[in-house]
């Protein structure tokens, strides 16, 4: 056992901190909202600044312009960025998509898309969910029909984060009607702006735009923009969702730690009847409890990270980490609201807002986290079935067939 970071990892963390000191976060314009996951807002300029450091492609093989840095360097980068509250919203999605392209993408995808990702110019939205297919993705209706050297995609995608400001969509579509349920799906990389694609914003309960829905009206995509073999998209997607749970949540612990530090500072400096709020036993206990939860959360994520690094089998380890990340986030969001009292609900920019009005924002965004990327319920089932070997519930259509 060894729970320390290596000297190289610590030196890299110092590099990242130096970069953050040299590039004040206020200097980066933001285009998309901070959805509270820990990766901050969407800033193209910040992504380009990371690209200029070589950090977007640092884990890739040298033949694709990478530095072949180990997985833990990516974790160090995410930790430091999240702890600083940096706007690196699209980063994890870029890494995941690039890894998939390197693993089984066409030459065209490698040639065209990877360099754009490395510069910070290429970002992605996930076109998975549909109005009729949420937790049950096998029910999706979007179709991609082969037509010569192209596919023609028709369908309706929804809940795609930052889709309107990204550069490519990852569109998951049915390519065969005949094949078994889980076969017959394929993934496509579709550039934004392709004729027939209509991306519309969905205003979220914070009043900002994070999600989009996309209408695909006979969108024509060259066949070599398909990601992976035809019909095997679902397996790729499942693997993607496994790592999505990890990469889409890893930075939540450091981000929540940042929030916790703010709340500790607030409790120390806010006096109630002349006594610091920090002396209130229930406040003390809840803040300490939150620190314990965060330590536990980190343990889950780093264990999963070690398994990923060692290429060991992952059955439930990322799922349990995601569930705990999201529920801990909601708990800390409520704690923040309670500590701030009547100031809690004030929004950013309001007269009198405390802690920048971020607490109410974090509270609202946290509501979506136990839904997005696999609901807490679906993931608990995953933990039980894949992790513990409990029997799966009969599928509804199997029951109907009787």
């Amino acid at each position: 056992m060894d729970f320390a970071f290596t000297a190289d990892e610590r030196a890299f963390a110092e590099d990242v901190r130096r970069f953050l000191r040299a590039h004040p976060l206020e200097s980066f314009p933001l285009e998309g909202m901070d959805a509270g996951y820990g990766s901050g807002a969407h800033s193209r300029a910040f992504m380009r600044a990371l690209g200029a450091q070589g950090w977007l492609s640092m884990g890739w093989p040298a033949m694709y312009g990478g530095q072949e840095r180990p997985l833990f360097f990516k974790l160090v980068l995410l930790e430091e960025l999240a702890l600083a509250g940096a706007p690196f919203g699209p980063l994890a999605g870029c890494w995941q998509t690039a890894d998939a392209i390197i693993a089984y993408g066409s030459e065209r995808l490698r040639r065209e898309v990877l360099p754009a990702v490395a510069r910070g110019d290429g970002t992605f939205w996930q076109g998975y969910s549909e109005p009729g297919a949420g937790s049950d993705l096998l029910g999706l209706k979007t179709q991609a029909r082969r037509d010569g050297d192209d596919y023609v995609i028709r369908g309706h995608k929804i809940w795609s984060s930052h889709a309107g400001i990204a550069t490519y969509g990852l569109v998951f579509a049915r390519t065969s009607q005949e094949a078994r349920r889980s076969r017959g799906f394929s993934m496509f990389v579709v550039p934004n702006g392709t004729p027939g694609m209509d991306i519309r914003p969905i205003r979220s309960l914070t009043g900002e735009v994070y999600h989009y829905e996309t209408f695909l009206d006979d969108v024509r995509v060259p066949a070599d923009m398909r990601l992976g073999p035809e019909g095997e998209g679902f397996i790729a997607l499942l693997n993607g969702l496994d790592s999505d749970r990890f990469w889409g949540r890893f930075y939540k612990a450091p981000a929540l730690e940042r929030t916790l530090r703010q709340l500790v500072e607030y409790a120390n400096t806010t006096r109630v009847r002349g006594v610091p709020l920090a002396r209130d036993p229930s406040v003390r206990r809840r803040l300490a409890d939150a620190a314990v939860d965060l330590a536990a959360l980190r343990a889950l994520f780093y264990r999963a990270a070690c398994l990923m690094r060692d290429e060991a089998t992952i059955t439930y380890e990322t799922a349990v980490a995601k569930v705990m990340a999201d529920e801990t986030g909601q708990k800390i969001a409520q704690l923040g609201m309670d500590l701030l009292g009547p100031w809690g609900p004030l929004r950013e920019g309001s007269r009198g807002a405390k802690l920048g009005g971020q607490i109410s924002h974090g509270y609202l965004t946290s509501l979506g986290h136990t839904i997005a990327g696999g609901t807490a319920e679906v993931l608990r089932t995953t933990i039980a079935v894949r992790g513990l070997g409990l029997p799966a519930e009969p599928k509804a259509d199997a029951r109907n067939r009787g």
Partner: protein
Amino acid sequence: MDFRPSAPQQLLASTAREFLRRHAPPERVQEWTLDAHGLPDTLWRRMAELGWPGLLVAPEHGGSGGSLLDVVLLVEEMGYACLPGPFIASAVVATSLLAEAGSADQQKRMLPELATGERIATLALVEESGSSDPADVALACSVPGRLTGRKLFVKDAHVAEHLIVAVREGDGLSLLVLPTDRRGISRLPLEAISGEKLSEVVFDGVEVAAGDRLGAAGVGAAALAPALAAGTLARTAEMVGGAQRILDLVVEHARTRVQGGRPIGGYQAIQHACADLVRDVDTARGLLYLAAWKAAEGQPAESDIAIAKAHAGEACPAVARRGHQIFGAISYCEEHPLHLFHKRIQAAALDFGDAQHHLETVARSIGLV
């Protein structure tokens, strides 16, 4: 970073798992729980043959010079078996104290006997306040002199040859090593639901000489800190092992118990409860290993140990309670093993400071004024 125990540590744990599976099945544990003596001496001697009581003793005193991390892995297996007995009290806490504070002569005299398990020692710390914080020790004694008063919740005193007694001396805390058969010492059993052997120890004008000191006068608090840390980690490990066993029992039950035409583990209500047990056990173990690793590496580990104990102290009893709910009526029976693990976890959760106590340490560590 690496979460895996080393090869020798894995061997230690797997040997313990197999040994305890054979020699300490739940039926036997239940008998020992109801028996006034507890763990049979024969089994204690077999454990000693495996070198377990000597794990924390340096090789020059006949031990194997293991680390706290080794101890934690071994005690986790003891928790998995719900093994009763004086291991933590004697081989972890008292042994740590002697190694920390004992004079060369005391170490030479006592550590080899503790390492072989021939002698058992235990710490007498807690008093009427119920606190295991050395600052709360009130029992006063001047040395040489006479000791009158009492200690509570002394573990395994009924089989111990030595008591290590924390006393207030002037402004400081001192430690005394007293043989349990010294005139004026009586051990009165307390009856705990867990079947753990606890005593009230009464000192009635017990004669104390300068040679009875463990360490110098007034340095008891500093000497106690590492031993209490070791005890805290060991009880946390016991909880983690017990909670893992409950999870394993529950999953086996959920797979095989059929209601409504299918195993109850196929119902989401049960699946989701099991998923929460996984979360609780995995996080408790992760925090335990991290804290034990830090302590074993000689790094400051006070807040990590507090985090591990506070978390396990809430998560593991929750696992036990939910285990009962999933098992249903059968787990309400004495012959069903679940209550053994549950009671042990409860006892461990409250020992060496409850969650509230450790959360206060955490509160200070995150900078709350």
